[in-house]
């Protein structure tokens, strides 16, 4: 369904993704793990279509070349990226924003738009999923939200937008254990035969809640190892050091001689 081949991304002449290959089938959840600075967030932004990157290689979703599309066109093609740092939009009502998003995508696809009353039912269902109270819909998008509320709002958006491919970038960062449980159960409820997901995370913790079908290790902008969920457990135990041929700030200490190997 998603085919990524030799994807490169550079910003201001500094290359961050260095030939990333990844294939994802339907109804699969792939976890991408990696140390800080390995290019995890850049991969999410490269799929979402953020300006400012020099992009090379291929990324297709259901055969559609994503890299030629504007961010809003990618959304219409079925890409949804849940961001690590969701943006606050003061003055824009959350409910209005959600419906505008859903209807924009429908318009681009040539589908009929959904009315306010019908949408309320859709939104209610999504709210239940992430255990949010209704006043949430009447606040401005993410404005003054706690870290956990912002992440739940991302999952809420994913639920109403019903994407083909959901990319969740460090959705677990900054969450306490209750918020993590809510976010994870929301994600699990949205797994299904029509959809695939990429869960980007630094820690194994999230994968206790969202069990991936595949785990990939991203280092220096490349996938260096792939496996099943046991790979995540192995990373938890040994860190990323085995996959890195230079020092990392967050990698466990190890002798220089070994690092130089």
């Amino acid at each position, binding site marked *: 369904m998603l085919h990524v081949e030799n994807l490169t991304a550079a910003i201001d002449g500094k290359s961050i993704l260095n030939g990333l290959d990844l294939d994802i089938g339907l109804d699969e959840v792939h976890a991408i793990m990696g140390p800080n600075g390995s290019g995890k967030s850049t991969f999410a932004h490269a799929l979402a279509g953020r300006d400012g990157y020099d992009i090379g290689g291929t990324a297709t979703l259901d055969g559609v070349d994503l890299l030629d599309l504007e961010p809003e066109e990618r959304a219409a093609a079925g890409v949804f990226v849940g961001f690590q740092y*969701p943006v606050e939009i003061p*003055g824009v009502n959350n409910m209005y924003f959600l419906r505008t998003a859903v209807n924009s995508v429908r318009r681009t696809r040539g589908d009929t738009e959904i009315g306010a009353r019908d949408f309320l039912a859709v939104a209610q269902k999504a709210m239940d999923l992430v255990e949010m109270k209704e006043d949430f819909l009447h606040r401005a998008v993410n404005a003054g939200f706690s870290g956990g509320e912002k992440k739940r709002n991302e999952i809420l958006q994913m639920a109403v937008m019903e994407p083909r491919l959901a990319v969740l970038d460090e959705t677990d960062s900054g969450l306490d254990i209750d918020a993590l449980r809510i976010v994870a159960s929301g994600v699990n409820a949205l797994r299904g035969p029509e959809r695939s997901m990429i869960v980007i995370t630094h820690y194994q913790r999230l994968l206790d809640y969202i069990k991936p079908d595949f785990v990939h290790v991203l280092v220096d902008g490349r996938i260096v190892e792939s496996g099943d969920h046991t790979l995540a457990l192995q990373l938890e135990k040994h860190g990323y050091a085995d996959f890195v041929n230079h020092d990392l700030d967050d990698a466990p200490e190890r002798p220089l001689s070994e690092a130089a190997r």
Partner: protein
Amino acid sequence: MVAALPYPTKRDEAWRYAPHKVLAALTFDDSVSEGAVATESLSGQIPALDGPRIVLVGGVVDVSLSRLDALPTGLTLITFEQARSETPELLEAHFAHDDEHPLDTFAALNQAFGEHGAVIDVADGQTIDTPIQIVDLALADVSGNASSSGVVIRLGARASATVVETRLGEGESGGSNVRTTTTIGDNANLRHIVLQDMASTQVHLGSAKARLGAASILEVHLFNLGARYGRFGYDVVLAGDGATAELNGLYFGAGDQILDQQINAVHDAPNCTSRQSFRGILDNESTGVFNGGIDVRPGADGTDAEQSNNNLLLSDRAEANTQPRLEILADEVACKHGATVGQLDADALYYMRTRGIPTEDARRLLIQGFADQAVDALEDEVLRNWILERLRDDG
């Protein structure tokens, strides 16, 4: 009197950004009414409020467009002409010469030539629920006349009312020069909403002075949207113990508009509160000016004053000028002020686009969101919708 006043120049801080050549081309002759305005054409332009109203066309009251029958109990709504013969004391404050708070040149011209206008008087203890509307429509005028008219608002003690002033204009030149004088009695409560949406080739010179009695509340919403040069000066004197003035405003400029707000809160009694909150959106080559003063007089102890001015620039040729002026001559005073000038948040635009919202729609949503923080405070839905529609046309 008028001849003695110097014409303002760029050297006057309060007139620094005014288009002086445009102003110099204006004339301030006696008001003339140059033609009838159809009721239908008017109703398409002003907020669809029911209730009493006085309409001035070219600076002269048009009785046929006004609604003066079946007034609520406690409300007097009359023309300056009527007041002169029946209750001249109501006009005293408007035509008085106040050496302590002198009028600027154009307000003084208005005082000299603005013989027409509307008087709103609410008796002690009366609450008027229906908004009272004053409409000022400036007509096209080949001589570049800026018609002078006036509004007098007087609220008795414990009275309560909402006044909506709508200022419009048609045509290529000229404009209007409207002056409002407000007196608010003790424990009274006035909501004063001003909508300025003249043609972008005209000039609007608006000025208002309000004097607040003890424990009274003035809530102002100023929407400065139209005119080549749209100026609004609002001076509030908190004259009674414990009075509150909330001054909110939104200006939205495009083309080569200059939208100029000159706001002053004078704390002349103890324990008063003032809030100034103005937002500007500036596109193309437009210029926004916020010159906001907080003046705490000796003896006005326990003053609580805040001021904020936030600007959103939609073009790199647009300009926002913000100038706080604080003069504090009392003790135990809390004063805060802050100003920002920013652009549309690129991260927010990207975020919205990743949610499928095309760039133009995302921009419009962000602009509306910025404006909404000023529009939201309007409780009346008719007014909210009028503003939002106007902003949609612009955005």
